[in-house]
C-alpha cells in the first residue's frame, strides 16, 4: 500500500536503534513493534514493497504517542514526526484507523461554545461517577470561567480549545506575567478556536490544514507576536509552514513564540524581589523539548522565582499524555505515567512544573502536584506586590 511518504525521508533511517530508549512505548514494552525503528521499518516495507497493512502494523502505528522523543536522539535526522503524521493521515483517508465515531470529538474542538457546554456536562457527569475511570477525565474542570479581557495590543496570547475551557486560570496567570513585563495582551479567544494539533496527530491532516488556514486568516491583520502557553499548540502553530507549505504560513509561523521563550527574552525587565520557597521539578512537555526544543527557557524563566529548579533524570521521556493518546490507549498511557512518576519520586521536590495542559492533566490523574510555570511565576509576582502595597 502506498502510504504517500516521501521516499527520501523514509530512506534516511539506517536502523541503528539509537532511538529505542527514547521511545516511551519501547521503554514500557521492550518490543520492536512499539519502537520508532520498528515503525519505520514497517512503513518502509509497506510502502516500498507494497505490502498490505496488517492489524499488527496498524497497532504499531496507533500506539505511537507522537512525542517525537526519537527525533533529537536520531543522529541521521530522520523526520519521524512527519513520517508518522503522514502515515496516519493516509490510514485515516483509507478508513483504516480512527472510525468515524471517534472523529466526532475533533469536530467539537473548533466550536468553543459547544466545547464549553459539553465540558460542563462532562463535569457534572464526572462528579456523579457516570464516566468510567479509564477515560481519565480531570476532576477539576471549572464550571464557569472568568472572561479573559484584552489589556493592549502588543502581543496575542493564543488561548486554544480545551485549555481555554479547562485551564483558563493559567491563561490569566500568563497574561498577568506578560502585563507585569509591560506588554498589553490580546487573548485570541473564540475567533481562533483551535490550532489543529490534535487533528494532525490523529491523522486528520486535511482538517488540520483547514484549521491552520483559518487561524492564519484570523490573525493576519497585523504582525503582532503570538505567544502560546501550551507546548502542543505552540509546536503545531510553528509547524504551519510545513503543514501548508506556503510562504504566508511560513511567515506566520515565525511570529509564534512559546510564552517562556518570550518571557526569557525580556527577563531582565523583571525585578525579582521575592522567591517562593519551592523546589520545582521540571517536566518537559515533549512538544516543547523534542519539537520546539525551547525547554531551556522554562528553567531560565522559573529559576529567579523559586528555591531550586530540579532536573528529572530521564532525558525528557514522554509522560504518556500525548493529546488524546491517554484516552485511546489508556493502558500504555498509564504505564508511561508510572515511569514518569517513578522518576519524579526519585527527587525531593514540592511541585512539578509542566508547560503543557495535556501533560499536567495526565500527571494530575496520577496524583502528582503539578502546575504551569506561569502559575508559579504569577504567584511569586503577586507575593512581591503585596508587601509593597503595605
Amino acid at each position, binding site marked *: 500500500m502506498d502510504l504517500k511518504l516521501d521516499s527520501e525521508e523514509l*530512506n*534516511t*533511517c*539506517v*536502523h*541503528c*536503534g*539509537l532511538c*529505542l*530508549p527514547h521511545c516511551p512505548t519501547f521503554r514500557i*514494552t*521492550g*518490543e*520492536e*513493534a512499539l519502537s520508532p525503528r*520498528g515503525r519505520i*521499518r*514497517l512503513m518502509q*516495507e509497506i510502502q516500498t514493497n507494497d*505490502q*498490505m497493512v*496488517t492489524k*499488527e*502494523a496498524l497497532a*504499531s502505528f496507533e500506539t505511537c504517542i507522537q512525542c517525537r522523543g526519537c527525533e533529537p*536522539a*536520531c*543522529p*541521521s*535526522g*530522520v523526520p519521524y514526526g512527519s513520517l508518522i503524521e503522514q502515515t496516519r493521515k493516509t490510514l485515516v483517508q483509507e478508513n483504516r484507523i480512527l472510525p468515524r465515531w471517534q472523529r466526532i470529538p475533533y469536530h467539537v474542538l473548533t466550536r468553543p461554545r459547544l466545547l464549553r457546554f459539553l465540558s460542563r456536562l462532562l463535569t457534572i457527569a464526572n462528579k456523579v461517577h457516570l464516566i468510567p475511570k479509564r477515560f481519565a477525565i480531570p476532576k477539576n474542570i471549572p464550571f464557569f470561567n472568568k472572561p479573559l479581557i484584552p489589556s493592549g495590543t502588543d502581543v496575542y496570547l493564543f488561548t486554544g480549545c480545551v485549555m481555554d475551557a479547562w485551564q483558563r486560570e493559567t491563561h490569566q496567570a500568563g497574561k498577568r506575567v506578560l502585563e507585569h513585563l509591560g506588554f498589553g495582551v490580546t487573548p485570541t479567544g473564540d475567533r481562533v478556536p483551535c490550532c489543529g494539533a490534535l487533528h494532525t496527530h490523529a491523522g486528520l491532516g486535511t482538517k488540520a490544514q483547514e484549521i491552520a488556514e483559518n487561524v492564519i486568516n484570523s490573525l493576519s491583520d497585523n504582525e503582532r507576536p503570538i505567544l502560546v502557553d501550551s507546548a502542543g499548540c505552540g509546536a503545531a502553530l510553528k509547524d504551519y509552514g510545513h503543514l501548508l507549505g506556503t510562504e504566508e504560513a511560513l511567515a506566520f509561523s515565525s511570529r509564534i513564540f512559546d510564552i517562556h521563550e518570550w518571557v526569557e527574552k525580556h527577563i531582565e525587565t523583571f525585578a525579582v524581589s521575592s522567591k517562593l520557597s519551592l523546589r520545582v521539578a521540571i517536566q518537559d512537555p515533549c512538544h516543547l523539548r523534542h519539537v520546539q526544543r525551547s525547554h531551556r527557557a522554562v528553567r531560565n524563566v522559573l529559576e529567579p522565582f523559586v528555591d531550586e529548579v530540579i532536573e528529572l*533524570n530521564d532525558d525528557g521521556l514522554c509522560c504518556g499524555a500525548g493529546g488524546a493518546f491517554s484516552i485511546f490507549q489508556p493502558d500504555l498511557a498509564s504505564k508511561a505515567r508510572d515511569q514518569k512518576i517513578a522518576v519524579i519520586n526519585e527527587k525531593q521536590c514540592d511541585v512539578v512544573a509542566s508547560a503543557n495542559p495535556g501533560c499536567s492533566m495526565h500527571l494530575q490523574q496520577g496524583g502528582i502536584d503539578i502546575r504551569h510555570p506561569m502559575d508559579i511565576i504569577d504567584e511569586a509576582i503577586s507575593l512581591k506586590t503585596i508587601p509593597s502595597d503595605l
Partner: protein
Amino acid sequence: MSFIDKIKNLIKPSVFEDVFVAELVAALSPERVRFDATERFLHSHDSSVFDEGNAGPICFPITTREVQTIMRISEKHGRSIVARGAGTGLAGGAIPLGAPVVVVMTKMNKILEIDIDNRVAWVEPGVINLDLSRYLQPFGFHFAPDPSSQQVCTIGGNVANNSGGPHCLAYGVTDAHVLALEIVLPDGEVATIGGLDPEPVGFDLRGAFIGSEGTLGIATKIAVRITKNPPTVRTLLLSFSSMRAAAETVSAVIAAGIVPAAMEVMDQRITIAVESFVGAGYPTDAAAVLLVEVEGLVDGVQIDASNIREIGFKHGATDVRVAETDNERELLWKGRKTAFGAIAQIAPDYYLHDTVVPRSALADVLEKVNEVAERYDLIVMNVFHAGDGNLHPLLLFDAREEGMLEKVHAAGAEIMRISLDAGGVLSGEHGIGIEKQAYMDELFTTEDLNHQNRLRYAFDPQCRSNPGKILPAGHSCADIQSLKNVPQGVWG
C-alpha cells in the same frame, strides 16, 4: 526420511506450527507469544544489512523458568532458538536463520541487586547498558564496557558479543567485567557458571560463554563487576593535518608506556557529519582528530595529559584542546558515540567494518583501506578505537543503485584481507555472526575451527542455539535445519 516425517509432509505444514505455537502460548501468555507476519518480519532484522532472516514464533519471557520452558518446548519440536536483546548487532548475530523461536529478552530488564561491598551488580539480561551506569551513578560506580550503542544495547547483548567500547582500552572488554552468569542451556537445564570469588572452581565456562553470540544458551542473570568512578578525568582533542600523523601519535603514546582510558580517531568526513549533529566544537578543517581520555588521580592525570600533548605535537598535531567542562566533554563523547548514525546525512546506507590490527600498523592499513575505496569508487570514512588498533572503516553507498551491494561486499572483503595480512583479526567487537563466517578459515585452520565446534557441542550438543552463526559452513553446528515448512505469512 522416516515414516513419521513422510506423514508429516502430507499434512499441511502449518498444523505443526500451530501446535508448536499453541504450546508456547500456553507456557507464557498470548500477549507474549507472537506469530503474525508483521512481528516475524520485524524480528528477522537487526541493525545489520542482512536480509536473509526468517523468524519463527517470537517469545517475550519474563522469568528464567519461562526461558527454560521455551527451550524444552523447542527441543521437543526439534526447533532452534535465537536470543535477541535490543537488536543493535552489526554482524547479524541475532538474525534468525531457519525460522527458529526468537527469544526477546528485553522484558527481563530488572537490576536485581547492587552489592557495593563485593563490587558486583546482579542484573537481568534486558537491562540497558547505560541504564545500569546511570543507576550506579549515585553510588560512585559505573559499568565499564561502553559500546557506542550503550544507550540502547542490553547487557545480555554485551555478554553475547563480548562488547567493547572506547573505554575498554584501559578497563578491558565485557569479559573482564562479568563474574558469573545464570544460563539456560538449549535443553532447558539451568547452570550457574563463574562466581563472585576470584578463581571459581572448574573450567572457565563463563569465559567460554561470553562472546559466543548466543550459540551456547541464553543468559538469564548476569553478575557484573562495577567500577569506581575515577576522581579525575581529562579529555584531550588533538587535531592533525593527516591521518597518518594521528595514527602515529596513537602508536607513540602506547610505546611511551601510557595507557589512556580511551583513544579514538575520526577522519575529516565523519568529523564534519558529527559536528553538524552535536555542535561540540570538533574542528571540521582537520584531516583527522584524536580524542584521548586519561583518568585516575589528579597528579597522574596531569602528567599523562601533558605527555600526550607533547607526543601529539612531536608527531604533527596542529592543535591540542582540553575539554574545560563536563558538558564540553559529554558533547565530544556524544559526537563520537553517534558517529555511525550520523552517516545518513551523507548516504542512505553504510557498511561498517570492524577489524583489529597491531597498533603500529594502523597508519599503513588505513592508507591501504583508502586505496581500496578509491579503486571501487566508494566513499570510506574512518572512525575507530585507535588505542586498541580496532578499525571501523565505513563504506557509504545507496543500496538502491544497481550492483552497489556486490561492490560494497567485494571492497569489504579486501579490507578484511588487508587487516589479516597486517597480523590482525576479523572482528574486535561486533562479532562474526553471519557476516564474517566465510572468512574464519583465513584466520584459523580446519582443525582450529573443529576445536571451536567442540566447545560449542559441550554446551549445545544438538546445535539448536542460534544455528548457522560464527563457524563457516562445513562445521556441523554451522548447518541450519532447513525449515521450509514454515510459511513466511502474508508478507512472504
